[in-house]
């Protein structure tokens, strides 16, 4: 075989045969040499416009219709046209088969990079990470989205677009509080979920008999009988999954409205692992593409020119501006994840004394891929950083920790820097930045005044003095009250129980009339 025969492609052009060749070559490296375990792959070639479309419906190929996606589209299109924003090279969907979208504008090198990154890096992560295993149902998601789309369209037909839109608006406002944070009875099975939704509807229709409305009911048992504890237990309080609570207990919601809340909740849940593993997910994909591309180059399947083109994109992706750089906008998950994984590879294969002291379990173990595969499977961003951020990497990034307490000091305190005294504190603080339990405000339903005016009572536990923004809170509570159909109150209190602020929202008539 001559050198030219070994090359995957020449120049920048590609066709479908080239893509196939690239996939095969990547698969060879990924599965046989790196030992990755992936869902079957499906590669779809799309145009830039289709990429924008996919972008604005949260990256999913099919989604129900809602104005807010149109707003995002308009916004993204505008900034894309103005050149403020480049399009991502790929979108990848956590489903089985794992679907990766490739833009037709990409050069052959870029397609190779994207395939290595998405179809093998992300794919392996989706299939093996415990959070995704626990929370998402890769086999069912596409069918479920199809069902959601049909169901929403069906509701619009039957109940009017206005009513559906209003319910979805309200559900979207509560989306980040529609998540079960702790694994419950069983993992999600979206296909069964879809079938159950169908059966529920069929049952409701079959069992509905107008006569029963006219039968006089007996005296309702006095609410006072139910003591507070029992009531709270029956309602499953306190409950932090607001959407779940409403779906199950809101007194005046129609069945289809409950179903919509359920759809939004399932989708929020589906995306929940993604938000907890951004650094790891992107780090994995970047590490994998780097390994695959280097190997392909080594094998003589990529020309030096192509490899240089790859290196340039790769360097852009893993660029981390410093805090005083105008381009700085937080940590770049690609940069952080990739750097940590390379660092782990180094610790495993070539540790120094410091590494042996900090990471006795993995230092010098020799099998970098084995260690990494284990980490990819069993950690999320927070635990990953708090376990594997090494002093050397903290020095490399020259990390420092700022503590800002407006009550105490006039300025911002530099609390820790990258030195012997600071490593552990830096690592803990950085990990906290990725703790989702910490990022979202802690809001839960604490009680319902069943004896009185059926007021729904919520509590926000204030941490470190950060209270809710007033305008947004009022608007969200308004949506909440519309769904609940009675008054809703929210109390903000600190850890000691001192009430800092109280909001009350009254329902508008829209939800009840809908």
């Amino acid at each position, binding site marked *: 075989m001559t050198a030219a025969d070994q090359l995957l492609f020449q120049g920048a052009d590609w066709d479908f045969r080239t893509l196939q060749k690239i996939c095969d070559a990547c698969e060879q490296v990924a599965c046989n040499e790196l030992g990755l375990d992936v869902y079957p792959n499906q590669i779809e070639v799309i145009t830039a416009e289709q990429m924008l479309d996919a972008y604005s419906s949260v990256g999913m190929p099919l989604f129900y219709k809602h104005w*807010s996606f149109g707003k995002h589209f308009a916004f993204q299109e505008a900034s894309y046209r103005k050149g403020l924003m480049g399009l991502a090279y790929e979108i990848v969907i956590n489903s089985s088969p794992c679907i990766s979208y490739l833009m037709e504008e990409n050069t052959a090198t870029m397609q190779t990079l994207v395939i290595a990154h998405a179809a093998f890096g992300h794919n392996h992560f989706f299939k093996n990470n415990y959070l995704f295993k626990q929370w998402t149902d890769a086999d069912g998601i596409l069918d479920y989205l199809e069902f959601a789309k049909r169901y929403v369209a069906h509701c619009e037909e039957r109940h009017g677009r206005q009513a559906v839109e209003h319910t979805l608006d309200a559900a979207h406002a509560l989306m980040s509080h529609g998540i079960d944070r702790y694994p419950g009875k069983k993992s999600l099975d979206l296909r069964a979920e879809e079938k159950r939704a169908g059966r529920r509807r069929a049952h409701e229709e079959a069992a509905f008999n107008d006569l029963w409305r006219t039968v006089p009911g007996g005296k309702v048992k006095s609410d006072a009988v139910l003591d507070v504890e029992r009531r709270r237990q029956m309602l499953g309080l306190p409950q932090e999954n607001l959407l779940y609570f409403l779906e199950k207990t809101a007194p005046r919601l129609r069945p289809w409205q409950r179903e919509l809340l359920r759809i939004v909740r399932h989708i929020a849940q589906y995306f929940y692992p993604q938000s907890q593993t951004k650094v790891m997910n992107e780090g994995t994909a970047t590490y994998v593409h780097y390994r695959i591309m280097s190997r392909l180059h080594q094998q003589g399947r990529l020309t030096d020119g192509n490899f240089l083109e790859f290196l340039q994109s790769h360097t852009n992706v893993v660029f981390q501006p410093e805090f005083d750089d105008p381009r700085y906008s937080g940590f770049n998950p690609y940069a952080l994840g990739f750097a940590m994984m390379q660092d782990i590879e180094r610790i495993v294969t070539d540790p120094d004394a410091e590494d042996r002291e900090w990471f006795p379990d993995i230092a010098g173990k020799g099998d970098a891929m084995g260690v990494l595969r284990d980490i990819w499977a069993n950690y999320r961003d927070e635990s990953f950083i708090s376990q594997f951020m090494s002093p050397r990497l903290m020095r490399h990034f020259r990390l420092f920790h700022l503590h800002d307490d407006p009550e105490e000091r006039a300025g911002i305190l530099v609390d820790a820097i990258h030195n012997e005294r600071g490593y552990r504190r830096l690592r803990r603080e950085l990990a906290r930045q990725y703790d989702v339990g910490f990022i979202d405000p802690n809001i839960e339903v604490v009680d319902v005044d069943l004896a009185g005016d059926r007021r729904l009572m919520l509590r926000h536990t204030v941490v470190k003095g950060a209270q809710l923004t007033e305008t947004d809170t009022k608007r969200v509570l308004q949506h909440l009250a519309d769904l609940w159909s009675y008054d809703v109150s929210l109390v903000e209190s600190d850890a000691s129980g001192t009430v800092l602020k109280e909001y009350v929202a009254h329902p508008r008539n829209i939800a009840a009339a809908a």
Partner: protein
Amino acid sequence: MHIVDRRLNPGSKSLENRQRFLRRAKALVQGAVKKSSQERDIKDVLEGGEVSVPIDGMDEPRFRREGGTRDMVLPGNKKFVEGDMLPRPNQSGGKGRGAGEGDSEDTFRFVLSRDEFVDLFLDDLELPDLAKRKLAEVECEGIRRAGYSTSGSPANISVSRTVSRALARRVALRRPRPEELAALEAELEDCSEARRAELLAEIEALKAKIKRIPFIDPIDIRYRRFETVPKPVAQAVMFCLMDVSGSMTEHMKDLAKRFYMLLYVFLKRRYRHVEIVFIRHTDRAEEVDEQTFFYGPASGGTLVSSALQAMHDIVRTRFRPEDWNIYAAQASDGDNSYADGEVASRLLTDKILPVSQFFAYLEVGQENGLSYEMPNSALWTLYEGLRANGAPLSMRKVNERSEIFPVFHDLFQRRSQQERNAS
């Protein structure tokens, strides 16, 4: 590994979402469109473009936190050591929705296409008396293809259709192909004597058959057929009448120009074909081109009737009222010689108003003036008299650029017949 080409799938999946967004934001967008059309030149307005919509009502609220103590880990330490105190950055330099100002007036900008823009711009306007169009009379002929026929002019022969029919006929009648003949002749070269006679007879028969069945027969020939279809006329002519006497300032002409342009855009939306006739007048009127109309230096006395007469003449010679929807907009500062009133009034009532769909009179005033303070001018009084008698006339006074669109809007709003008569 499965590779799919999705590029041919219909794009614009977001179109529906985008339309929903526009529908939802319609009131807001419409307000923004009107505002931006006041600020911009009308030509630019028609380009569509970016509008800002107040984010209030369009945003999607979430529970969010702010304030309190904050901890952050940052990269890129160059000189800090533990215990350093940094000055707090200026609080006001936040990102708009920063520290607790609540209802900040953030705006959300996005781009409307030209059509979307003009649609919103003209949304609730309509042309008065569109019903006048008499479909029965105002039809003209159009041509469209209508299959094939057996007769026609040679220019219209459809070669492909003819040949395919010929082929079908030849196959059906079993016309021998040249190859068959050639094969027999080749066999003839070396064969036994007995076979030879047989072959000769066969060849003879084939040759005869070929002669009997021609390659193309006159019955194969097909002609492309066209038929004429009646098409409704959808055309309008717009007369721009302007007083250019010395009293008309640049500002007044500018106001008039804006009004005409709005009218033009508006008509363009409704009719496939819109003609514009510019007539300027002092004490005599002439038809001019757009450039001269707005920028040509001309001055003199004022005789409104001259313009009306000119319009009447042009209508008579070029725009039959049966075929054309006629619109006229007159802009003037209202001066007219006293003696002319009677003539103008007669021209309008007898000749012009009966054939016009709509006649708008725009009285333009000085910059910084107040429209309701303008004294009733000679023309205004004259037209008001006509309108009181039920003529389809609309009249408004305008001083400022920003008033043009509202006035235009006002004139062309959908309304009932009675209301229109009253305006």
